[in-house]
């Protein structure tokens, strides 16, 4: 028998699923199939992204025999998944690594790549487990320490994340500082961290690391309430790494917050297939009374419904925001935000929980978030309106 709380959770989950299914009902929903026979033989049913054709099978098979093929191939699939949001690529990467997992002794490269897949699926605890194992095998693996720091940060375990940042120093002292300061920004030292990161020397950093620095600066500026500086940093980051979905979404939020809906649509044009982007598009369409909203809304609801059916909601934060701001279903949004908070503790998770609790008139539901803010001295101008009223 499941525990009572688990039963309750499963009830709210089912309720939310029903909402999502209903919201998406005409939009190719999960409920009814409307199969048809295409009228024309040459009707194109699907376009294959690079790496997803059956002609890729021989190289995948080769990856089963050769680790030097498997590692770059898995890396390629993971980068495809990141750049396009296409989650199938995570599965392809997993298949390529499958044969090499569970080896004795474990191969740290395989473990780190697999941890990255788990991280992308928001299986954060499992990712930390794989990374710990990788680090037992290779204690100076900078990539493993960096990924570990990132995952622990998402989990809100700042002390452990900080310890991981320190271990980066032998490989790259600047990167280690960037890692540490980004954590301090979340842990009650926002202003001094912002200054410190701005003063970091750029020369030794790779483009990817520079883009990361700009993105962190953008987030810090946003937390400080300096939106114009934040916009500047986000644009710098996107220039270096246009495929960085996280930064693009953050910049889109900034634009939406300033009421620049038309610019948001322009920023996200062509990225509708990524749910986090589609959510921001829907929010902008809503602001502009754009007729495209109906379709965006149905697609989001259907996609979230399928995720819920699978029982692994990768985009639960977005789902909560969708339910709150687009579907206007505050109590469903709150249950999604609570589920999200159980898994991840980034500022955006905190914000959606605070907002949903207020909208649903359940201030008690925000208690874990408030506790977190008190514990870490989190500073963010966006939290202010909710903190005052709830405390």
């Amino acid at each position: 028998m499941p525990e009572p709380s688990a039963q309750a959770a499963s009830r709210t989950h089912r309720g939310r699923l029903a909402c999502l299914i209903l919201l998406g009902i005409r939009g190719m929903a999960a409920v009814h199939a409307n199969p048809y026979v295409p009228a024309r033989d040459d009707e194109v049913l699907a376009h294959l992204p690079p790496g997803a054709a059956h002609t890729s099978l021989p190289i995948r098979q080769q990856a089963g025999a050769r680790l030097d093929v498997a590692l770059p191939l898995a890396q390629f699939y993971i980068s495809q998944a990141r750049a396009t949001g296409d989650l199938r690529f995570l599965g392809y990467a997993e298949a390529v690594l499958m044969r090499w997992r569970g080896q004795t002794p474990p191969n740290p490269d395989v473990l780190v790549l697999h941890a990255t897949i788990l991280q992308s699926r928001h299986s954060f605890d499992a990712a930390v487990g794989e990374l710990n194992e990788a680090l037992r095998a290779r204690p100076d693996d900078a990539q493993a320490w960096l990924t570990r720091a990132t995952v622990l940060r998402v989990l809100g375990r700042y002390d452990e994340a900080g310890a991981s940042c320190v271990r980066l120093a032998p490989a790259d002292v600047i990167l280690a500082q960037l890692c540490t300061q980004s954590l301090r920004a979340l842990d009650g030292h926002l202003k001094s961290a912002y200054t410190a990161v701005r003063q970091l020397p750029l020369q030794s950093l790779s483009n990817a690391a520079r883009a990361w620095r700009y993105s962190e600066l953008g987030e810090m500026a946003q937390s400080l309430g300096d939106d114009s500086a934040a916009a500047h940093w986000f644009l710098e980051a996107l220039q270096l790494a246009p495929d960085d979905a996280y930064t693009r979404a953050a910049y889109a939020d900034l634009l939406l917050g300033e009421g620049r809906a038309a610019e948001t649509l322009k920023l996200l044009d062509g990225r509708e297939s990524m749910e986090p982007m589609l959510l921001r598009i829907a929010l902008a369409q809503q602001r502009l009374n754009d007729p495209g909203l109906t379709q965006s809304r149905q697609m989001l609801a259907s996609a979230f419904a399928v995720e819920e059916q699978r029982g692994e909601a990768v985009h639960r934060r977005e789902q909560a925001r969708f339910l709150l701001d687009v579907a206007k279903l505050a109590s469903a949004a709150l249950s999604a935000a609570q589920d999200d908070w159980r898994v991840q503790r980034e500022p955006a998770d905190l914000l959606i929980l605070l907002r949903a609790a207020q909208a649903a008139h359940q201030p008690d539901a925000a208690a874990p978030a408030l506790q977190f803010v008190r514990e870490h001295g989190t500073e963010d101008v966006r939290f202010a309106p909710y903190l005052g009223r709830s405390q």
Partner: protein
Amino acid sequence: MSRPGAFFVLSCVLAVGSAEAHVASNGFLDVEVQGRDLSGSLELAVRDVELAVGVDADRDGKLTWRELRASEPRLAGYVLQHLSLRAQDQNCEIHFGSLQVNQRVDGNYAWLPFTARCPWALRVLQIRYALMDGIDPSHRGLLRLTAGTHVQSAVLGATDALSTLAVDRSSPWRTAAQYFHAGTQHIWSGIDHLLFLLSLLLPAVLLRRAGRWVPVADGRPAFCSILKVVTAFTIAHSITLSLAAFNVVHLPSRLTESVIAGSIVVAALNNIFPVVTETRARIAFVFGLLHGFGFASVLADMGLPSGARLISLVAFNCGIEAGQLAVVLGVMPVAYALRRLSVYQRALLPWGSAAIALLALVWFVQRAFLPA
């Protein structure tokens, strides 16, 4: 969740356009049960079909309806290899209708209707779902199972194991009845368990005195002896059956099956060259532990329906006991009646036991040494 009005407003407009959202790879399996017949559909994303069987014949990166249709026989073959539907451990034969296309949020799907006929009416549906195996381990089958008015859903393919679903969830007793029946069937068809028990019971109507068999004076000692043996056997196999059914302990079937055959040899030889006479219940207990694993392998093939695991296990075990009891009640009164005849003491018991021992020895050699 109390704003039904909103749903209607939101759901009135048809979705158009070709935009797609990215979700992980899913297959949609829709099954409706009617007696011993299944009907439904399987949907796989056209993109997934490409990886499974190869669709893009001209390799232009565009999958057309012509290409998909040309791959239909390969797709059907692939599905038959990677998906099986079973009713109480017997395969249902799947027949596909003609392929169509269904639009979903993450693109177009190949929609494959099917019917399937099972050997008997479904109480428990078992599904082995291994589509996209080795290609995309994150692929899942999202099942929607309809039986009458009852609809249930499940996620398939997360592990290699068979998914077992009670079709008639409204009545766990019907499921239990099914498992009870399976238990009785097993003791009848699983003759090795019966022969073991009989080998221990045949001498229960006799006593060993000074190197000779003498008949018991009245029913009382015979009854006590039978009761002890049967009880010991029952308790022992119930323990291991439960442990194995809930995956606490697992032994390789080759080992258990061989030892079960060996246990019959030992029990039968003990009647010809008596070593243990007064404490046969101990033999029954020790070897009963292994027979329990034998029962468990049958149960593992059937699977325990989620939601009614314990009751099904108990029912299966009761079925075994009932079958066993029927045999005891059928055979032992006859043995009791014949106990004073020398043909029972001198021929039936030793030669019968010898025949049993020989048969079991053959099983033992087969199970232990010949390739499976």
